[in-house]
């Protein structure tokens, strides 16, 4: 008994420092070796004047060495700092890419006219956000700093006038309206298709066919359906249509995926019609519906940006394409950055909604 506990104590004491250090030393040596190899490889190529010829293999190999390096570092990180390490990795790598891009553009290794350094894109973004474009009568954000003054002068009409000149609000408005217009009927049709075999057989093939059709290709037809083909309605409708098709197909799969035992339980305990939909079918299909909504949001962004490329006088897509046409790549890139930021923000909004509507999910 005493012998055992003494052994345990010895083992516990040594586990603290003794057996770990040689391993850690080995890891440190490996880290130094990997970092050294990465630097040496690139320097050797650069010194020989061959880096430009072998840029892609050199970048690929450096990336592999970097992954190995970070994995070694990860093994040395104590458990309580694991979270910080993972965040550093997730944010640090894109940062490294941006820094390398900056250096490459500054040194002229890549053409800064077509690939302007991130710092210039940032300046362009600041410029776009703060300046009023007299030519098109638009701004990126609608000059929110003028809004309090406009409100005190003209009330809401003043604020609306400023907001109406914003590219971002134009795009977000189209996406949100189109999204609602497509998602709500899409989910309803999907539920009917999921429950009724006849409707499913009748619509499935048609929807699948329209689904693969690029929505920008049917935009001209959609335009012709309206008295004002250049107004907002066709743009919103084409977004709604793409979201509708996707959500109908997705919700159908979601409803069909509900475990039959829940439907039986619902029926046995007296649910029918609306109560069946409200208490069993919609919540049962909700997880898959939400993953569909997330994809639909991406699709809505793609569609609206391409529509704005082609036919719009306002919107982030229009702005991006406009600065490409006038050969101002910094501002074009700034437009792309705005699209990405909008995508991330809208996805966050959707995730917030998901947490509110599905509190039962972990």
């Amino acid at each position, binding site marked *: 008994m005493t012998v055992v506990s003494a052994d345990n104590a010895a083992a516990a004491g040594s586990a603290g420092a003794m057996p770990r250090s040689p391993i850690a030393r080995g890891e440190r040596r490996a880290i130094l070796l990997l970092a050294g190899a990465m630097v040496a490889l690139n320097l050797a190529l650069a010194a020989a004047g061959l880096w430009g010829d072998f840029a892609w293999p050199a970048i690929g190999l450096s990336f592999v060495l970097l992954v190995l390096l970070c994995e070694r570092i990860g093994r040395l990180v104590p458990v309580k700092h694991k979270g910080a390490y993972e965040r550093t990795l997730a944010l640090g790598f894109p940062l490294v890419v941006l820094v390398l891009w900056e250096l490459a553009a500054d040194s002229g290794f890549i053409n800064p006219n077509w690939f302007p350094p991130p710092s210039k894109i940032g300046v362009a973004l600041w410029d776009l956000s703060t300046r009023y474009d007299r030519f098109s009568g638009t701004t990126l954000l609608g000059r929110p700093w003028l809004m309090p003054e406009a409100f005190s002068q003209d009330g809401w009409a003043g604020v609306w006038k400023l907001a109406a000149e914003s590219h971002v609000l134009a795009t977000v408005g189209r996406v949100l309206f189109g999204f609602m217009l497509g998602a709500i009927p899409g989910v309803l049709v999907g539920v009917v298709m999921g429950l009724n075999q006849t409707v499913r057989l009748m619509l499935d093939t048609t929807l699948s066919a329209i689904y693969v059709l690029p929505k920008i290709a049917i935009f001209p037809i959609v335009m012709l359906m309206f008295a004002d083909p250049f107004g907002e309605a066709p743009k919103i409708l084409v977004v709604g249509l793409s979201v509708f098709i996707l959500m109908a197909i997705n919700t159908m799969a979601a409803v069909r995926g509900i475990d039959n035992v829940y439907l039986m339980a619902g029926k*046995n*305990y007296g649910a029918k019609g609306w109560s069946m939909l409200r208490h069993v079918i919609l919540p049962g299909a909700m997880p898959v519906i939400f993953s569909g909504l997330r994809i639909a949001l991406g699709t809505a962004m793609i569609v609206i940006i391409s529509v704005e490329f082609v036919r719009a006088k306002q919107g982030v897509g229009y702005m991006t394409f406009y600065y490409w046409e006038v050969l101002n790549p910094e501002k074009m890139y700034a437009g792309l950055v705005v699209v990405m930021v909008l995508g991330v923000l809208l996805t966050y909004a959707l995730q917030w909604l998901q947490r509110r509507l599905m509190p*039962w999910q972990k």
Partner: protein
Amino acid sequence: MSVSMQAATAPKIGARHVSKHYPTADGTMVALEDFSLEVADGEFVCIVGPSGCGKSTFLRMVAGLESISLGSIDIQPGREPGRPLNSVVFQEYAIFPWKTLIENVAFGLQMRGVGRKERLDRARYWLDRVGLGKFADYYPHQISGGMKQRVSIIRALANDPEVLLMDEPLGALDAQTRVVIQEELLRIWEETRKTVLYITHSLDEAVLLGDRVILMSAQPGRHLATFRIELPRPRTIAMTNSPRFAEYRAQIWEKLSAEVTRAMEARP
């Protein structure tokens, strides 16, 4: 007068010459053939049989969840109007993951239009009764399998049906949890004396719980034998060690083992 007379004489569940056929690509598959069963009011009847003998199908037919190909099944309504005829406890729990435990237990009452306060009070009463009161606002993913099945059982009991239909309710649980819930079932049944139709593949469970054990044959399911279990009530888990219990089990197993062998040979 005549109604009460009829209620006293007619069985609570009357299944007469029930058959179930499925059309398949290679012709008709017979899942259940000419199966008759009468369950008296307040009786606990267990149905045992090899897998695929159609016992679950029969239970779903009694519940009205599956169509009847031939024959008829009746559940005698009680004197109180508005009480549901049957509630099913499913093998896979089937409590809704999107509802809290108390909402799950109150579900049947909610569907019948019972007011919010009353149905939650009744649900809480049943949760307390099986020791889940403090988990009322938990979601099913936060609790264990045994707790889920308890919720599933009290969801049926809170609905206060004329008959309780249980489809291998403890089949998915581990051996220890099974025994605990069996004891709980015995206790609750003593207090409520519901009419129960109980499907199981465990002989011990059937003999322990049932007033009668019905043995079914392998596919197509037919009535093979009936055993009346005359162990005294209230029963306890300790009875599973008594010689009479072992005798009943041996009797049933003798018949069942032949059937299981036949079923295994018929379907390689």
